[in-house]
């Protein structure tokens, strides 16, 4: 595929992500921070996000499997996840975390487990989307084009 098409595909895809609410303006901010001195900023941050989130999700699963659930710890983890997701603009993940925290306050184990599933789902969705996006970027760069800014 030639560069122009790739670029158009990239733009459309990015737009759809925003439309569907997977990403919000924070992600745009991240993209703005990427420049010649920092060319892989977005990828780095997002990879960091993925690492963090996977660890957090494992911790959460373990915590909620306990006989007596330590809701404080659960809340702490969810708080972290909320922070990370809002930092990169993963809107749906963040919203799921907010709901999760409410149930933590109520100390409702069942609801929490449901929320955890929800969070996991949102996370894998956004991960896929972002992976696709990055792949597209790579393709554009390999094809010799410049990655268009979508603002």
């Amino acid at each position, binding site marked *: 595929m030639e560069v122009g098409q790739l670029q158009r595909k990239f733009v459309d895809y990015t737009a759809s992500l925003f439309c569907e609410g997977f990403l919000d303006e*924070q992600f745009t*901010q991240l993209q703005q921070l990427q420049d010649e001195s*920092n060319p892989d900023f977005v990828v780095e*941050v997002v990879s*960091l996000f993925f690492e963090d989130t996977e660890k957090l999700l494992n911790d959460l699963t373990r915590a909620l499997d306990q006989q007596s659930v330590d809701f404080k710890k659960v809340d702490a983890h969810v708080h972290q996840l909320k922070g990370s*997701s*809002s*930092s990169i603009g993963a809107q749906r993940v963040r919203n799921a975390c907010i709901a999760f925290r409410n149930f933590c306050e109520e100390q409702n184990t069942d609801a929490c487990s449901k929320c955890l599933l929800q969070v996991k789902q949102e996370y894998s969705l956004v991960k896929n989307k972002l992976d696709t996006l990055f792949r597209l970027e790579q393709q554009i760069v390999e094809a010799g084009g410049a990655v268009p800014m979508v603002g």
Partner: protein
Amino acid sequence: MESCNCIEPQWPADELLMKYQYISDFFIALAYFSIPLELIYFVKKSAVFPYRWVLVQFGAFIVLCGATHLINLWTFNMHSRTVAVVMTTAKVLTALVSCVTALMLVHIIPDLLSVKTRELFLKNKAAELDREMGLIRTQEETGRHVRMLTHEIRSTLDRHTILKTTLVELGRTLALEECALWMPTRTGLELQLSYTLRHQNPVGFTVPTQLPVINQVFSTNRAVKISPNSPVARLRPVAAKYMPGEVVAVRVPLLHLSNFQIYDWPELSTKRYALMVLMLPSDSARKWHVHELELVEVVADQVAVALSHAAILEESMRARDLLMEQNVALDLARREAETAVRARNDFLAVMNHEMGTPMHAIIAVSSLLQETELTPEQRLMVETILKSSNLLATLINDVLDLSRLEDGSLQLDIGTFNLHALFKEVLNLIKPIASVKKLFITLSLASDLPEYAVGDEKRLMQTLLNVVGNAVKFSKDGSISLSAFVAKSESLRDSRVPDFFPVPSDNHFYLRVQVKDSGSGINPQDIPKLFTKFAQGQSLATKNSDGSGLGLAICKRFVNLMEGHIWIESEGLGKGATAIFVVKLGIPEPSNELKLSFVPKGPANHGQTNFLGLKVLVMDDNGVSRSVTKGLLVHLGCDVMTVSSGDECLRVITQEHQVVFMDICMPGVDGYEVAVRIHETFSKRHERPLIVALTGNTDRVTKEHCLRVGMDGVILKPVSVDKMRSVLSELLEHRVLFEA
């Protein structure tokens, strides 16, 4: 046979006589021998005897006489020649010594007699000294009593105690039967029995003050003996059987503070006295001695002094109580005044804000309306609305200004402006109103008036408008002339304003503005009131006048702030008036002439946009947030260091870091605590890095908490690039940032 020298007796053979003579001679000899012995013995015993030699002589004389008589014993019978010789020797010696002694005695006896006289004299003297000693002792006793009494009396400042103590001590010292004190009543016409020694509660005996005996006592400061039958002395029912003791009365001056002079008891008859009456025990033979009277007089004086001290003390206590009351009242008044001032300020602030908001809305919307398509009538109506609202807005500001002027908190906004343009603008604003009233307005600017000046343009225009507006308001017809020129030193010294000594200098000049109108004029008596708030002269209180009374007062304050003076001259009613003010303005430097203050300031955010090298510390435990924040700051050119815990932050922070961004939502780490510790570490404000809190929630509680621990700002996460840029520039410009 040898010749016999002895005397032959006439009756040779009378045995009895011979015997008697014999015995007598024997005894005489004995006596003659013992007397010197006795003499010697006693003289030896006595220590001093000045005539020893005489005594020896005497002794010898006596001894020899004795010897003679002794030897005589042998001559009664036939005796031998030896005896005769011895007898002769003895007699001769005796004769010698006797003659010598006789001669001596002529000298001695007068001396001895005089010794006797001297002795008598000395004895008399001794008796006299004894008497005097007795007297002195008595006096000293008296003195001691007086001292003791005085001490007792003066040891208290309570009137009652003083008087009671006096009576008790006097009674004790002088062993009195009764002691009483009569005090003058309020009217001074009677004396009332106030204190006695024996009766605990004297029932009110009174005697009139004008009794002769009382007058007698009051007329001298000595103690006076009075009759025991006088009314003041008759305290007990008189029983006929006993002889009442002598009575003495003395006056006690009751001093007022104003009369109290040392060494000089005033002798005015209008003085008030109390009467002290002392009675010796009845049926005793005691009489009043002089020293006792002296004691009484001294005590009376002391009592007077003590009473006056007590009075002074009472007075000062009363004064102090009064002062305290006044203090309390004053304090209350002050607090009330402060409350009132605070209330007024609060009210004004609220008023200004509350009234200003809708006002500005009206003005804004009317301006907008002006821009739309309007019919001429509609345009006129909108303009009226605008003008009225502007006036109202001005008035609201005036009120606020005035209160700020009074507090002294108003400050001039100094800037360079076009002076000529200002006058022209004022003229343009006034012209429409003036032409409606058919008034002519002329403006004349002096040729040496600078085009640009440095000062508070808005307030100068306000003053000018006010003054010219008044001129227009109070003129029904005629002309108004507005002139402005640079004031020279001579013209600055005005006899009407003697305290005003303006001194022009190199970069300042004094602008003098005169507004002359030919209107209704002002009564010269009302002129001082013009500049007082809310005071209106009678001539001004016509139906047409709509001045609130604040305008000129505010102008005066503005003019004073500009180091100038404003006044109004008028010949009288109907003769017009001239308002003149002089203000100090600066001369702008040539290069600043082109900068006009009409150009509005650009947005404050276009300050620093380049933060290259700004050392920043980011504290966040969330890896992703940390990277994003770091990326943000790096993008803006900062030199970023990241830490993920409070301890690490405190360990790493130095005064080279200019800003610290810390996430305060970190679980397990108290960001506030970290901020406090940073404050403790960097005590000097300029060394301390600015602390900004990053948080996902900026409600008031969080913001207040951040303020309290000393953070310089709070930002909501997530932060955009523009947001971060503006935050940093705001921080670095003002060193503080607080927003949502």
